[in-house]
């Protein structure tokens, strides 16, 4: 078994009286395809925001490759090798696709090498014919690819994808899964995906964590999760398990 890349220990996040995350612990191992699922409002996106530094947890600890990153600002966390894509794509509206990706690439490269990195990522995400289009003019599936490309340009070791498959048609979904699998196998990027599209979760991931009302209710392989009574109950309500 490989070493853990991300360890989250007893993470708690409150918004006023609402406990969005309650004592959540998890461990993602290097090279893994990990998934976090759960009904709407379970705290999945909040968990992401706390890991990448956009929100500060009220309690708990987050370790990245053994180093405490709890409460560090996002650009430092990006430096260390974690980045994410958003549930609702947030590309830079005033820029062309190429420029938006460039912003990510500047993290690791100077002006001289940045173009090479941008080309590489554009080829990988199949964006060549679109590179001069403006981010404010393109559709959802393309925006998702731009987000993925921009995130890849920062050369992450751990990439968090927040509902990257939502709103994609079956063909686009298959393409996305192929790209993600390649990233994992060829570039050894550890992936953690939050997803509602079960086809993607079950087809792609090795280990799944289930959140409900801010708590971890199950963890295991796709087979274990799909037969776990607590998970079925969380998704379909009490009485659904015969």
């Amino acid at each position: 078994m490989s070493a853990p890349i991300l360890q989250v220990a007893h993470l708690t996040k409150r918004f006023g009286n609402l406990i969005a995350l309650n004592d959540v612990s998890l461990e993602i191992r290097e090279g893994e395809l990990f998934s976090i699922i759960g009904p709407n409002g379970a705290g999945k996106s909040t968990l992401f925001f706390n890991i990448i530094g956009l929100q500060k947890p009220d309690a708990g600890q987050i370790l990245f490759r053994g180093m405490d990153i709890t409460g560090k600002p996002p650009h430092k966390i990006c430096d260390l090798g974690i980045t994410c894509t958003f549930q609702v794509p947030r590309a830079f509206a005033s820029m062309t696709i190429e420029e938006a990706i460039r912003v990510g690439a500047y993290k690791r490269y100077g002006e001289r090498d940045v173009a090479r990195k941008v080309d590489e990522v554009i080829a990988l995400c199949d964006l060549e014919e679109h590179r001069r289009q403006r981010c404010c003019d393109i559709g959802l599936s393309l925006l998702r690819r731009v987000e993925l490309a921009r995130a890849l340009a920062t050369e992450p070791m751990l990439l968090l994808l927040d509902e990257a498959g939502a709103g994609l048609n079956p063909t686009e979904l298959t393409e996305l899964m192929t790209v993600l699998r390649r990233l994992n196998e060829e570039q050894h990027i550890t992936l953690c995906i939050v997803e509602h599209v079960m086809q993607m979760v079950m087809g792609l991931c090795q280990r799944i964590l289930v959140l409900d009302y801010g708590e971890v209710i199950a963890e295991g392989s796709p087979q274990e999760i799909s037969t776990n009574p607590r998970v079925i109950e969380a998704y379909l309500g009490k009485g659904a398990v015969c």
Partner: protein
Amino acid sequence: MTDTLIQNLLNGALTGCIYALIALGLSLIFGVMNVVNFAHGDLVMVSMYLTFWIGLGTGIDAAITPLLTFPLLFLIGLLVYYAIIDRTLRQRYVTQIAVTVGLMTFLRALAQLIWKAQPRALPYSLIQGSIQIGSYTILASRLVSAAVSVLVIFGISLFLSRTWAGRAIRAASDDLDAASLHGVDFRQTYALAFGLGSALTAIAGGLLMTFQQVDPTMGVRFGLLSWCVLAMAGLGSIPGLLISGVIVGAAEAMGMSLWDPRARSLVIYLLFILVLWLRPRGLFGRK
């Protein structure tokens, strides 16, 4: 009659280029960090006094002092950012407005203390003479000032679209969270935008001093004027800023020559209200 009008329009349009330059500094600050900076015009005033001081003390011409005042104002901008603005970023709008209005009052009082409440001007400028086009006379200092303003605006536009730091500023302006997740340090980027925005007032201050006098109360006029230009142009369009600056300058001149010299501000603000009323996003703004 028409001759005077065209003459005044020309002068106004040329001065408008400097307004656009001032507004560009404001637009960098407001567009990137959403801070309503009321002290911007007073930085122009301070720049003009610094130009006056340097000119008087060393004999360096007003047209050249920006080489000295630009880095100085950049540092002042950084200082203001880290000392004041950075602490109020997560506060309510009212708090931000209060601190920048406070800074505005402070700068004005400081100017009154150091330079006394009387208009000051430099006795001469390197840029002498005028150019005759048909029956119209254009003061060389105004023409050079306008040309330099346009060049600097063009340069800043290139900086924003071509360099790493410029792209970071735009990325932070488009979506701060997304930018910081892709490695943009927001505090550093904000400080750079604030410093650069302030430093642009140094160029404007130097140029203005080649044909104008300075007094401690003129900051508020430039401040509001640049807000007008910015609101008229809308966020995100640098050519739009230049055009709006020219419109404001020309409108001001027209009001003065057709109506009454005292009506200069009235005309500008009428135009301002009209634009906000008919087209709230500005003439060239996005969305």
